[in-house]
């Protein structure tokens, strides 16, 4: 049995602005075990990004509890790659280390090793404008990995890419996360992507959202995300989740 490293209990979030208040999250409960790959799916605007923002401590919660195991650190990968055009690929990957004051020879070597392992070493002195969308996304992931987080939060990491690159990159990202032994929580609106990558899928209801269902994904001969799409259980999960999400039924 794997250790639980994150426990979300009764999480609540209300956004306030001058004219109104928006109850985004009503009652969110889930647990995350070490090295799990978890996906969150739900109708658009239901509060998926909000959950990640709260976990990344970018937003304050309005109620409930987020219990992290001791010494667990969190890295956040935004939907947009947000690479700085005036920094080289290497310098982009080092920004988190600079900010957290952890930039030294050792941490830099770790980043260089990541760039080497994931086929970006030759581009380390280039600027982001010369990279393809998929490569930029990998750079963004390495930038997040550089600070050695235990849990990675991924907000629709592939949504800016075309379908072909999405498939390839989801394989890449999955491999990188598994190789580096990380725990991941990914938000996506693509059901197939969620099933092909995750151990567990959390389905949210529409806003104000609650957890509608949690699926443990059990695929026979599970391998890479692209191959997982061919497993016989795949369509069964797809239909169930699709039905959960369709508000008109």
């Amino acid at each position, binding site marked *: 049995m794997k250790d639980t490293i994150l426990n979300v209990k009764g999480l609540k979030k209300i956004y306030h602005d001058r004219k109104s208040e928006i109850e985004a999250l009503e009652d969110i409960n889930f647990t995350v075990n070490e090295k799990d790959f978890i996906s969150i799916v739900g109708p658009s605007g239901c509060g998926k990004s909000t959950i990640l923002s709260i976990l*990344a*401590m*970018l937003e304050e919660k309005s109620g409930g509890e987020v219990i992290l195991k001791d010494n667990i650190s969190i*890295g*956040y990968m*935004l939907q*947009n790659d*947000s690479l*700085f055009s*005036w920094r080289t690929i290497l310098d982009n990957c080092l*920004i*988190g280390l*600079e*900010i*957290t004051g952890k930039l030294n020879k050792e941490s830099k070597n770790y980043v260089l090793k990541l760039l080497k392992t994931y086929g970006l070493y030759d581009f380390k002195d280039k*600027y982001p*404008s010369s990279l393809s969308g998929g490569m930029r996304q990998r750079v963004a992931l390495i930038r997040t990995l550089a*600070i050695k987080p235990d849990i990675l939060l991924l907000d629709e990491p592939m949504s800016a890419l075309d379908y072909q690159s999405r498939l390839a990159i989801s394989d890449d990202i999955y491999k990188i996360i598994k190789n580096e032994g990380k725990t991941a929580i990914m938000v996506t609106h693509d059901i197939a992507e969620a099933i092909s990558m995750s151990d567990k899928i959390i389905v949210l209801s529409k806003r104000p959202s609650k957890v509608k269902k949690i699926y443990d994904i059990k695929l026979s001969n599970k391998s890479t995300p692209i191959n997982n799409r061919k497993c016989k259980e795949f369509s069964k999960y797809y239909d169930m989740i699709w039905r959960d999400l369709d508000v008109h039924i």
Partner: protein
Amino acid sequence: MYTYSKEHKEYLKKLKKEKIIVFIFRFLIIFIFLIGWELLSKYNIINNFLSSSPSNVLKTAINLFADGSLFKHIGITLYEVILSFVVATAVGLIIATILWSNKTISKIVDPYLTILNSLPKVALGPLIIIWVGASINSIIFMALLINTFITIINIYNGFIATNKNYITLLKSFRATKRQIFFKLILPSNYITIINALKINISMSLIGVIMGELLVSKNGLGYLIMYGSQVFNIDLVITGVVILGIISYFMYFIIEKIEIYVRNKRS
């Protein structure tokens, strides 16, 4: 050695040809203008007393150079322009930074900035002379009134338009406001800042000349004013021509800085 394809060579040739055409026509325009002006005034088709002529302008410039006053006037005007430019740049950057880092302050001063920026400062000229006195100080004061607010506003607007995703990214690493400023706001706004400097340099020149026309005993503005008072049109036009050359050079320097910075990071 990398060799280009035939099509690419042709493309480069076309670019070169275009460059030559631009150069020739630029030269032709000024050449025809000067020759035309010279001839028209030489044969008195236009009143050569009122409209001067290129040769008279040249003569006047040489005379001014010979008695040493040319560089004195240029020097004083340049000094005033550079001083007010530097002060406005520093003040602009500092105030824009304060406004960026404190939303409440920026909300409070916003209407005042708008009013001060849109107010025609020339109208304050006589008042400035009374307050500050008819000295170089009031020239600098005039220039600062004209160039500072627009510099603040341009830089500040660039700062607050910085991509929000970038800020979120840095915040996810728990960046402090100071880190966000130096790692993101400043480097991502270099084009905005250079553009603000370009506007600043034009405004500084306008402000200084305005001030010199009003109070000065020295400088190119004074030269122009004096020339018109004694009806020496040659002197007036010589002053204007020198001013044109100076402002072109200042612009040129900022452009070089811009190209240097751009090349350094791509």
